[in-house]
């Protein structure tokens, strides 16, 4: 596929000897938002961690721009142009907002000031907080710092693990708006989300995982209108 940027093919992975992922395959094209939904324990976060090299790919292959990245270390994957925002503990609380963003540019400091300004233009709420200790910010602001940190190197693709987790409904809307904004700037996004209805409205395509396997896939609209998805994940 010409436009394909990220592909996981028949991936097996897990935390203990048991596999959580049992042959999952996904594709993300350039400038696409792709969502992964499914019940708890389906392997959604495990998939992101495996793609990003935090868990071993036991079987299968992962490609970024047709280059195999299976089992590379996270810092090597960052260098290749991928960012990752974990679901929790995704900031350095004792560092200031600016220092958090600096850590995002650790492997390449050139152009940091420019990138910082771009990130602050996406998240204007952070503009007057750059010197504040990140641990003292609200949950929503911390999530923005986490996303900003992952954006600072202008990656081609960014993995978001439940970006709306623990946020108030109002802040959830803000975060989803930001996801759209980041995507419009040309970034591909692979997002795992519990709030299935909201993410399916925003994404171009989606995958449904169940018990570590692919169950369904389609455009956001198709999945939103799918009876089974509606019954299982959208509250009937």
């Amino acid at each position, binding site marked *: 596929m010409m436009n394909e940027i990220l592909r996981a093919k028949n991936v097996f992975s897990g935390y203990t000897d048991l596999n959580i992922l049992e042959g999952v395959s996904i594709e993300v094209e350039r400038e696409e938002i792709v969502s992964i939904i499914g019940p708890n324990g389906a392997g959604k976060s495990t998939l992101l961690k495996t793609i*990003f090299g*935090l868990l071993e790919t036991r079987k299968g292959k992962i490609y970024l721009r047709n280059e195999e990245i299976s089992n590379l*270390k*996270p*810092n090597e994957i*960052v*260098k290749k142009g991928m960012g*990752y925002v*974990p679901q929790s*503990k*995704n*900031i*350095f*609380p*004792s*560092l200031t907002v600016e*220092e958090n963003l*600096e*850590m*995002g540019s*650790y*492997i390449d*400091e050139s152009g940091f000031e420019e990138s910082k300004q771009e990130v602050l233009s996406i998240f204007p709420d952070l503009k007057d907080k750059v010197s504040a200790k990140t641990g003292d910010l609200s949950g929503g602001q911390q999530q923005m710092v986490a996303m900003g*940190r992952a954006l600072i*190197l202008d990656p081609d693709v960014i993995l978001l693990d439940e970006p709306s987790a623990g946020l108030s409904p109002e802040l959830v809307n803000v975060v989803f708006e930001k996801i759209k904004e980041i995507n419009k700037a040309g970034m591909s996004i692979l997002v795992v989300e519990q709030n299935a209805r909201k993410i399916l409205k925003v994404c171009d395509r989606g995958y449904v995982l169940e018990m570590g396997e692919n169950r369904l896939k389609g455009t956001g609209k198709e999945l939103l209108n799918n009876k089974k998805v509606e019954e299982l994940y959208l509250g009937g």
Partner: protein
Amino acid sequence: MLQLILNGLITGSIIALGAIGLSMIYDILGLVNFAHGDFMTFGGYLTFFISLTFLRPISFIPLTYDLLLSAILAIIGVGLFSILLDKIIWKKLRKKGAGTVTLLITAIGIALALRNGIVFIWGSGTISLGIPISQAIEIFGLKITFFEIISILVAITLMLLLDFLLKNTKIGKAMRALSDNQSLASITGINVDKIISYTWFLGGAYAATGGILYGLITSFRPDMGWILLLPIFAAVILGSIGNVYGAMVGGLIIGLAQETSLVFIGSRYKIAVSFLLLIIVLLVKPEGIFGGK
């Protein structure tokens, strides 16, 4: 009393140098390094070895430069030795997910091996660097020797340097990031192994500096670091374990408390003041006076 306060500042400066390294290593690796005091001793003995074996035979090097050069080489040497130990022991234990008890026993083992290695090579008595005894000078009625002045100045400079490093350099900020969240640090592209090595180097180097200074103002003995370990632990816990700035302040408080206690108790009991402070802190404010990072 002012003289005791001055003495307290001198002792406190050295305790603080040891406490900084111990706290940094605990902060980033969760390791209580019982060998830290022996790193201090090793720094002193390495200075002795370099000076007497390599530099003293070169007659044109003045004694002051000889000492300075030997000390710098010894400090670098202990820093590199700390990295080496990490690579051959600690890193492997981390990868195997070793528990606290395993790490603790390993640290005690390294401490014993290092101390007995020193005794084996240089003997169990005190060693002399062959420096003429420096007369105390009097400033505003307070007596202080040349090496005591150097100890305070070096300790203050190194504390300021560390503060600068942690707040203003890429490596320092990465160290703070690692202390916050090692897994996230790795995700952002920070080379975690490299930063751990820098931390070991700094911890070892600061310990060696403390050991050399302590030896210069007292004497070099194989158990000097071991004796200092208790006040160092007290300083680290008092200043909130894992807090480098707390370790600096904790060191100074312990030093001051030990020396000023001489008004009430005999000098042989002053080490007990560290014990007492440690117990009081653990009972009243177990998280230390800085209460975290």
